C-alpha cells in the first residue's frame, strides 16, 4: 500500500486549510505592482480588473496587492486611471 503523506484519502481530497489546496502563484512573479498611496483615488479599478482578485482594500484609503498570489501581470498598473501603480522588478526587493 502506498503512503498517505500528503493526502489522507485515495483521491486528491484535502482540507481547505491544507497548503496543497492552492499554489503560491506569487512565486513566479518577475515584476511587482507598487501602489503610491497618495496618488491612489480609491476607485477600485485595479481590484475590478485584477484577473485573480488579489487587490485588497487598506484602511479605506488605497488598494494593495496580496503578494502571495499576485502573478505580476501588470493589468492593474495599465488600468489605473491616475497611474498610481508602477511595476518594479522583483530583484529590487530581494536582498
Amino acid at each position, binding site marked *: *500500500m*502506498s*503512503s*498517505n*503523506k*500528503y*493526502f489522507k*484519502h*485515495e*483521491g*486528491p*481530497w*484535502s*482540507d*481547505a*486549510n*491544507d497548503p*496543497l*489546496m*492552492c*499554489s503560491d502563484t506569487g512565486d513566479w512573479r518577475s515584476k511587482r505592482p507598487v501602489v503610491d498611496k497618495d496618488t491612489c483615488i480609491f476607485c477600485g479599478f485595479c481590484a475590478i480588473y485584477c484577473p485573480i482578485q488579489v487587490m485588497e482594500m487598506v484602511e479605506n484609503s488605497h488598494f494593495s496587492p496580496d503578494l502571495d498570489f499576485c502573478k505580476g501581470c501588470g493589468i492593474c498598473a495599465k488600468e489605473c486611471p491616475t497611474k498610481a501603480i508602477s511595476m518594479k522588478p522583483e530583484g529590487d526587493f530581494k536582498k
Partner: protein
Amino acid sequence: MNTKAKDRSQIKVITGNAAAAIAAKLARPDVVAAYPITPQTEIIEQISKFHANGEMDCELITVEGENSAMNAVMAASLAGGRVFTATSSWGLVFMYDAVLATAGARAPVVMVNVNRETPGIIAVSSGQQDMISTRDAGWIFLIAEDCQEVLDLVLQAYRLAEDYDIQVPVMVHYDGFYLSYLSEGVDVPFQEDVDKFLSVLNEQPERTKLTPGSKLGCGSHGILDGYLELRYKHVSAMERSKAKFKQIDNEFQEIFGRSYGGLIEEYRMDDADVVLVGSGSMCGTIKTVIDKKREAGIKVGLLKMRMYRPFPSEAMVKALKGKKAIGVVDRSLCFGFKGGPIYTELKAFETQLDGSKIISFIDGIANTDITIANVETMIDTTCDLAAGKDVREVTWVSYPEAQEPDSKKPDSEKRGGL
C-alpha cells in the same frame, strides 16, 4: 461462459443498447447525465423512458454535450452518488478532459462506451479506436462480447468502480453497430438479485464525499511529491483491480449462475497449440471457426480479453505460455507501431512466453466484417507461423493491398510497407 442451471430467469430478446440501459436501471443510479450519439442513442432513449415511466428513480440530466455529461456525473459521484453515463467515439473525445479529471479525482463513475471509429476520418462505423484514444486516461476498461455480457459487465463495473479498495472509474466497451443494434436473448436479472449483488458495497467503509458545510474539497493541486503520491495510489489501485475483478466474477456466478472466467475468457485453450487473442463481438465468430477447425484436427483456441486496462498480463502469460504461435486480432490501430495495440502490448511479455511466437492481425476497422473466412485466414496464418514458415508480422486481413510484398512490385512502387 459457464452457466449453471438457475431456479429462475427471464429471457428477453433485446439489443446490446437495451441491455446496457436495463443494467443501468437495475443498478439504481442516483444521477444519469448523457448526450445522445450514434450508436449509443438507444441507451439514453431507454433510460429516458424508464425515468418518464417512474421505473427509474434517478436525477436525469439531459445535458447540452458530452463534456457536461462527464463533468455532471463526476461531480455527482464525488458527492457520494452512484452515477451512469454512456457515449461513443466523438462524444468520448469531446469529454476527454473530463474523462482525465474523473480518473484523477478517483470518482467511481461507470460509463458505457459503444465502440465506433474516432474522429480523424468521418466514419459512422464500428471499431475500437475510441477505446484506444482514452487508453491511458486512468480508467478501468472492460470489453463485452455479446448482449448478455453487456448487461453483466455493467453490473460488475459498479462493484469494481465503487469498491472501497479500488475507487477508479470503469468504462464498459462493446462494438457499436454489431452489439448495439443486435437483438439477442438476454437473461435479465431480477432486481432483488442485483440489489443483493451490489449490497456488498454498502457494507464497506464509506468513501470520501463532498458534504455541505464541510471544509473538505476534491480536486486539490498535487505538486511534486504530492502528485507522485496520488499517481502511485492510482496505479496501485489499478493493479489491485485485477484480483478484485476475478473475485467479483466469482461472486456474480454465485448469484446469477454465469461466469466468464474473470479478466480473460479461455476457449478451448487447454490443449491448443495455436491461439488467437481477441476482444469484443469478434469472439463469437472466432469461437465458431475454432469449433470447425477442431473438427479438422487443428488444435486452436481463443483468449478473449474481458479487461483491457489494467492489462491482464499475468493471466495472459499464464494462459499463453508454451503455445506454439499466437495471433492477436486488433480492431484498432496503433499509429507509429506496425501492429495493433493489443499486439504491441502483448509483445512486451514475449520473453515470458517460453518461445511462443506472436503475430498481428488488423481487421474489423470501420465495419469491415471480421468474417468466418477472415478468421480462417488468421488461424491458417498462425498455424503457418507455428510450423516455422515465414509469415508477415502484421496482416491487414480485409486489405489485401497491404499484404502484397514489396519484392513483387516494380522498384518505382516500393514503399517499404509492412
